[in-house]
Structure formats: structure tokens, C-alpha cells
């Protein structure tokens, strides 16, 4: 009787609890549980918590899986059919190749664009400012040339018996240059 009482004073070890949860506990452990309310309560608490977790996680997974698109035979073999590589290394290599090609393309484009830019810039250069003195001398020169041309015209008209009224003759007034 004394030995029987002493056995309940020592509670189940962690290993015995695990065996109990696994359902592989020996008969002595089961006997201990029926006599030790503390161990029985602990076993019930742990198994109840795990059971609650199993139930709730099952509901969560069922709900989550139901909301996901279901596999279809048509949609699966897209990768195999197209022979697109799926390994990360292949995708990394492909990404590097694209980046390299883009980099080379951009640098070539920049080099090619420079002369064109220079030409456009040259065309868009503002006109050199001309001083009023030069303008005045240019206008005087143009007037002088115009005067000489008129003199030639009247001489030619007289030679062919044309009137000096200058019919139909265009006035050749010099266009004045302005800045």
C-alpha cells in the first residue's frame, strides 16, 4: 500500500508524457493517470490544446485551399511545352544577358546620338550680332549697286527705242537690311 502511494508522488516524466500523447505508453503510465489527477489534467490540457490546433488549422487550410484556383491539365504544362528554363540559375543568366544587351544598346545609342546632337546644336546657334556701322555700309553698297543697274537699264531701253516711262519695269529699290 505504501509503495502504491509512493508511485503517485513521482509524476510522469517528459518522455512518458510524449509516449502518452503518441499512444505508446505502457500500462503503468495509464494506471498512474487514473490515480494522479495532476498528471491526468496535464495530459488532458496538452492533448486538448493540440486537438484544438489541429481542428482550427484544418478549417483554415480547407478554407484557404477552396479559395485557390484548382489545377487543370491544360494550364500545367505551359513551362514544359515552351521549354522555358525554370531553374533560378537559368533565369539569372537570362536576366544578366538582357541587362547586358540593354546596357550595350544604350551606350551605343548615346555614342551615336552625340554627332547628331552636335549638328543640331550648331544649327541652332544664334546669329552673330552685326554692328550698326556694318549695316549702314552694307545698305550704302546695295544702293550704289542698284543705281548702277538702273543706269544700265535706261541705256538699254534707249538703244531699242523704248520709252523711259519704264512700263512694266520693276522697281529695283534696294531692300534695306535690318538687324
Amino acid at each position: 500500500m505504501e509503495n502504491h502511494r509512493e508511485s503517485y508522488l513521482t509524476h510522469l516524466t517528459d518522455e512518458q508524457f510524449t509516449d502518452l500523447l503518441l499512444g505508446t505508453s505502457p500500462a503503468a503510465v495509464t494506471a498512474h493517470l487514473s490515480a494522479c489527477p495532476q498528471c491526468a489534467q496535464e495530459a488532458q490540457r496538452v492533448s486538448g490544446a493540440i486537438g484544438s490546433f489541429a481542428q482550427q488549422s484544418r478549417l483554415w487550410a480547407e478554407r484557404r485551399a477552396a479559395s485557390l484556383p484548382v489545377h487543370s491539365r491544360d494550364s500545367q504544362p505551359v513551362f514544359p511545352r515552351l521549354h522555358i528554363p525554370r531553374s533560378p540559375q537559368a533565369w539569372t543568366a537570362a536576366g544578366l544577358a538582357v541587362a547586358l544587351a540593354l546596357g550595350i544598346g544604350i551606350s551605343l545609342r548615346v555614342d551615336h546620338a552625340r554627332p547628331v546632337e552636335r549638328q543640331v546644336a550648331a544649327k541652332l546657334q544664334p546669329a552673330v550680332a552685326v554692328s550698326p556701322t556694318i549695316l549702314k555700309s552694307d545698305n550704302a553698297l546695295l544702293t550704289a549697286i542698284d543705281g548702277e543697274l538702273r543706269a544700265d537699264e535706261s541705256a538699254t531701253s534707249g538703244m531699242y527705242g523704248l520709252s523711259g516711262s519704264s512700263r512694266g519695269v520693276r522697281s529695283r529699290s534696294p531692300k534695306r537690311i535690318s538687324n
Partner: protein
Amino acid sequence: MQLVLDPDMIACVPGETIPSELDDIDALDRVYRFRLLRFVAYSTGDQDLAETIVQDCLLKAYNSRDSFRGDCSVYTWLAHIATNLVRDSQRSRKFQFWRRVHKTAPDLNEVSSLLSSPQSSVESQMLARERAQQVSAALETLSVNQRTIFLMRFIEEMDIQEICQATGMQVSTVKTHLHRAVKAVRLKLGGGI
């Protein structure tokens, strides 16, 4: 003396493929997706990653169904594939980076309303929810192997032999991981006598 032949040996013709549920990917998806999703989601602690892994797992199983020898259940075989995929993903630097940046752990509160039943009181429902959250939190403190084995045994209800087949571990290793996992969960639940 009478010779007794095993009926399985007579039925099995070499080279002949035995039709199995693996041939029907829709059925495979319907039956095992949620179980795999639960297992992988709590193994990784990330539901988005779990969905990707489950998708890959089902595809891999379907594509390599000819290599399934039938010496274990289909779910054990799927769990083996899923375990390898989880290990691969956890080894990758990409996983470690995204785990730090963005982690979407399964939220049991999403289903708390579904658990209400007329038989159980509000108090007991809240207690059950709290306990489940405690177990979920305890799982995060376990090592990958401990968590995987704990989930396989207590959530997926696989026996020790099936766990050995799925993980490729020895029985003693599996039991050691289980003992440690149970101890940690008990401590997290405020246990200890």
C-alpha cells in the same frame, strides 16, 4: 505440401502500370491540397510560400508519378516531396530575405467564427482558440525538424514509420525530435508538474 501463392504477385504483371489516384491530378488536388497546405504553412510559417510549395509539390508528384513505387501511402510520398521542397526553400537566400521582409503566417482567427457550435459555450470556444494560438506560437520556437515531425505526427496523424519514410530519418531520431517538440509545446502551454 500445398504451394500458396500471394494474390498480389499473381496480379502484378511486370511492366504494367497500375492505375492510381496519382493519374488524376484533379482528384489529387481535391484530396490532398488542404492537408499539404496546412502542413507546409505551419512548417514554413508563411502561407503565401506554402501555396507556392504545395503547387510545386502537386505538379512534381503528378509529373513523376511513374516513380511512385507504392511502398507507402500517397500522402506519405507527397509529404516527402513537400518536406524536400520546404528544405530547399529555407536554404535559399531568397527565402531568408523575404522571410525578414514579408511574412504572412497562417491566422487561426480567420476561422474562429466557423468553430462556433450550439454545443460549445462561448467560453469554451475562446479557450480552445487561445490554446490553438498557444500551440501555433510554440511551433514557431521549434527547430525545422522538430516542427515538421510534430506536425506530421499530431496534425497529419502519421505514424512513426510514415514519418521516417517522409523525412528519411531513423526511428530514434524521429522520436528524439518528437520528445523535444512535445516538451517545448508543453512549456509554452504553461505546463510542467
